[in-house]
């Protein structure tokens, strides 16, 4: 009996300079930051205001921070993959297969589950309650649990860099390759537990937001008065509730195969690996729409605001969103047309897939007609949105090309496919998140981001994107398949080198983004958003101060039509005064709670112990996590009171500035 299970010193890659060096750098940075924070005496502040916070705005910001960090990590993986392929023509390159395979697996897992998901969920967290005109989500502490469990997943994935290895199976661990026989190491186990634990967090987020949107809207906020972003968030969260349990069950079956000798997906003993392919895509395809639907919501908000017009065809947009939501569950088989299901099945799923393009097409046209007759300001968020409109449409087109089975027979699993899904995810999700962060940043922090550096970020990103991925499309036509660690076909080489140039252009974008943050923080006084409405916004989040107080709204707003805040501003302009303030009352807000953080702390140990078969530690972790839940369930004082005077002070100050700004405007 080994007290540390499978864990020995050989788990640390002493013989491999690249992971060892990068791990050392990361550890140094993390320790450095922690020491700096402690030396500055910020620990109590961080603990009280952020780590234990159950305020949806703080949780949203932390989600985005996690997402951006992981985006950077995933991008470094991408740089390594592109440079490896650039060097590996008739040569081994600098990354041996067992390392390269981990990098592309980690890249996919991190980018989808720990970068894109936290960024989208983070924006949802920050914006949805504000847009609905409420003070928090339905279950604030659960929200904190969700976030910290996602962190646990991200931590486990990154831990695999130093201790052991990550999966070498691709971002979806297809059996039989992921079975014990072909992947005996801990890599797949890291994947399984990281994704399972963060998946629980995601499912809880889904439940939380569906409840929030269905049950806790402000007065008069009927379904058809909700901003588009709330609709898309609702659709995405319903997809989460429907799809994530499928993921959990599928990975649980693979876990049983690996840990307890079951035969769900094994070669032999009646196992059926193709069932895994079916099940994982029954989650995997809706997952794409979980990411892209809220992104469509962000673009709807941005395009409408910066065109100074309401969204064109709002009802059509709602119908198209729900249509996509529903149909996205009927198309998963297009991921394996080439397994040979036969003409009827392939044709049915091919047509179902292309039908999704109807919903997306409707949205494209509605955005187009939102711009028609508008007064378009080309601020950074609008640049990202127009870049999206122009780029996403061809990405959608290559998607429909892949949905045509005979065309898929030539392009499946080729670089064309890689180019396609990066095309839609970068233009659809990353551009949306960049637009969303720039758009809502002043709301979160009280100052705008620097426009010059923001525009530079955009232009480098879109140029880098095309220079990287157009060559990959061409490589697909040249028959190059994905995930090749080395190759010896001379025709491929120029395009691979061009793609490597492209990603270095994209690197400039990442650098500009970091500079933009630094410059904006230094110039924050010049960029200050005094009124809380820096973009002449239309929905309720702009009716609060920037940053909003813990209670969001002193009085829950009464909504009379689709454009809740625009309506208030119009009336203020007509009547030359902002509606009078009603009497203020004491407000009760949920108390901060360390439950989420402590739960995740134990979950990290549970995950680590399961990966390395350290059973005593797993049992301790389970006891700790359960005890945390019990302590939380027995809490006596769930809320604290913000006195009416405090509410009045904050609200009156903002109202005065806001009224002054509104009335000093030139009438339009």
């Amino acid at each position, binding site marked *: 009996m080994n007290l540390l299970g499978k864990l020995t010193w050989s788990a640390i890659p002493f013989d491999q300079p690249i992971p060892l060096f990068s791990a050392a750098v990361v550890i140094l940075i993390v320790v450095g930051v922690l020491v700096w924070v402690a030396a500055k005496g910020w620990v109590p502040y961080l603990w009280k205001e952020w780590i234990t916070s159950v305020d949806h705005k703080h949780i949203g910001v932390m989600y985005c921070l996690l997402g951006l960090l992981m985006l950077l990590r995933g991008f470094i993986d991408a740089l390594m993959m592109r440079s490896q392929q650039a060097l590996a023509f008739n040569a081994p390159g600098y990354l041996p297969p067992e390392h390269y395979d981990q990098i592309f697996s980690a890249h996919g897992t991190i980018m989808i589950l720990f970068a894109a998901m936290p960024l989208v969920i983070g924006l949802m967290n920050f914006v949805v309650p504000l847009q609905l005109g409420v003070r928090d989500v339905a279950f604030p502490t659960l929200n904190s649990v969700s976030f910290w469990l996602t962190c646990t997943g991200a931590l486990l994935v990154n831990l695999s860099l130093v201790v052991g290895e990550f999966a070498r199976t691709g971002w979806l661990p297809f059996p039989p*390759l992921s079975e014990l*026989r072909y992947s005996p190491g801990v890599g797949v186990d890291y994947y399984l537990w990281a994704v399972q634990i963060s998946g629980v967090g995601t499912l809880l987020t889904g439940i939380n937001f569906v409840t929030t949107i269905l049950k806790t809207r402000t007065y008069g906020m009927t379904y058809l008065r909700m901003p588009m972003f709330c609709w898309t968030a609702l659709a995405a969260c319903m997809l989460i509730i429907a799809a994530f349990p499928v993921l959990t069950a599928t990975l649980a079956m693979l876990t049983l195969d690996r840990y307890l000798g079951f035969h769900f997906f094994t070669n032999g003993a009646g196992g059926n690996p193709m069932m895994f392919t079916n099940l994982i895509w029954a989650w995997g395809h809706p997952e794409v729409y979980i990411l892209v639907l809220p992104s469509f919501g962000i673009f709807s908000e941005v395009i409408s605001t910066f065109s100074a017009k309401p969204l064109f065809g709002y009802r059509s947009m709602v119908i198209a969103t729900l249509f996509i939501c529903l149909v996205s569950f009927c198309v998963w088989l297009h991921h*394996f047309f080439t397994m040979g299901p036969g003409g009827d099945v392939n044709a049915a799923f091919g047509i179902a897939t*292309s039908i999704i393009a109807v919903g997306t097409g409707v949205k494209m046209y509605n955005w*187009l007609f939102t711009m028609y007759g508008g007064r378009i300001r080309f601020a950074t968020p609008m640049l990202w949105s127009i870049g999206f409109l122009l780029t996403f449409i*061809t990405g959608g087109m290559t998607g429909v090309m892949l949905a045509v089975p005979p065309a898929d027979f030539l392009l499946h699993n080729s670089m064309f496919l890689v180019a396609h899904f990066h095309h839609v995810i970068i233009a659809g999700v990353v551009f949306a998140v960049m637009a969303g962060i720039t758009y809502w940043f002043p709301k979160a922090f009280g100052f705008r981001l620097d426009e010059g550096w923001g525009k530079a970020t955009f232009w480098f990103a879109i140029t880098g994107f095309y220079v990287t991925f157009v060559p990959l499309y061409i490589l697909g036509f040249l028959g190059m398949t994905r995930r090749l660690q080395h190759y010896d076909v001379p025709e491929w080489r120029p395009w691979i080198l061009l793609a490597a140039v492209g990603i270095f252009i994209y690197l400039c974008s990442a650098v500009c983004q970091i500079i933009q943050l630094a410059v904006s923080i230094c110039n924050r006084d010049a960029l200050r958003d005094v009124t809380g409405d820096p973009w002449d916004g239309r929905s309720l989040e702009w009716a609060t101060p920037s940053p909003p107080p813990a209670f969001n709204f002193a009085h829950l707003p009464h909504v009379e039509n689709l454009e809740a805040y625009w309506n208030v501003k119009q009336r203020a302009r007509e009547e030359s005064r902002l509606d009078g303030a009603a009497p203020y009352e004491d407000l009760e807000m949920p108390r901060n709670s360390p439950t989420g953080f402590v739960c995740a702390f134990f979950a990290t140990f549970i995950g680590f112990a399961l990966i390395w078969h350290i059973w005593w530690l797993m049992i301790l972790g389970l006891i700790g996590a359960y005890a945390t839940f019990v302590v939380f369930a027995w809490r006596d004082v769930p809320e604290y009171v913000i006195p009416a005077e405090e509410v009045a002070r904050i609200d009156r100050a903002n109202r005065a500035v806001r009224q002054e700004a509104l009335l000093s405007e030139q009438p339009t």
Partner: protein
Amino acid sequence: MPSWRGISGRCGLATPLVVAALWPAKPCFADSILAPAGPVGAGDAIILLDATIIMLAIVIPTMLATLAFAWWYRASNARATYRPDWTYSGRIELLVWSIPTLVIFFLGGVIWIGSHQLDPFQPLSRAKPLEIEVVALDWKWLFIYPQQNVASINELVVPVGTPLHFRLTSASVFNVFFVPRLGSQIYAMNGMTSQLNLLADKPGNYLGLSAHFSGDGFSNMHFATIAEPQEQFARWIAQAQAKGEVLDAAAYRRLLRQDISLAPYTYRGVLPGLFDAVAMQKLPPGEGPHASRDGAGINPHGGT
């Protein structure tokens, strides 16, 4: 049952247009899937190009409209009419829903017909095909010619102009058999048999590879596909029948070990029913990294 001539003939509506459009880029695509060396590849490629052209017909105008609207309605353009309350138009709504719907109707027809005509299991003609059995191994390809009773590793030799009927399975993990210039790819999966019908109508040496990641040796899982005239093919078969060892149970067991970069070689005979025994899992599956090292799970960085 459509003949292979029918496939390329019927789908060839847009061919002249496409050829004209791609003419300047021709040298770049000499070795691509757009320069197919057989009717299946040609059928696939034509459908690909047809679908692309159908979609470009609305994609390009939409992109131009996006640019035009964004530019004309810029805030600084005093000549543009501001319509702050224009949010609904029944006619435009109708148009917005019907344009994509009609395109998808059209495309749906292409998908339905194409999926059936180019179904990989569908025989290409009534002529008797050459049977080839494919077994994906870690990390090499085994090609068995049951009618000729020979087998080859990492080299697929086929006669030009003869329909080829492949049956495929895997001895270990999933792989995809793919010769881009001949056309359709298909999975090779353990415990299952898939089928593929191809035909090479031009002699040549075409790249073949796996299109599904299968582990550390995946990048080495490529093979030369040599399409040659019937007489040369017969000569190759005769040579293969004359030399090398026999692929019996012991030789097959050696193939189950993980290795890479095997130079092509042939077997002069094959254990009868070997392919079916692999597909029906009557023989043990590929060894994986286990057998070579005790406690492979402990050292995570070990290769094979």
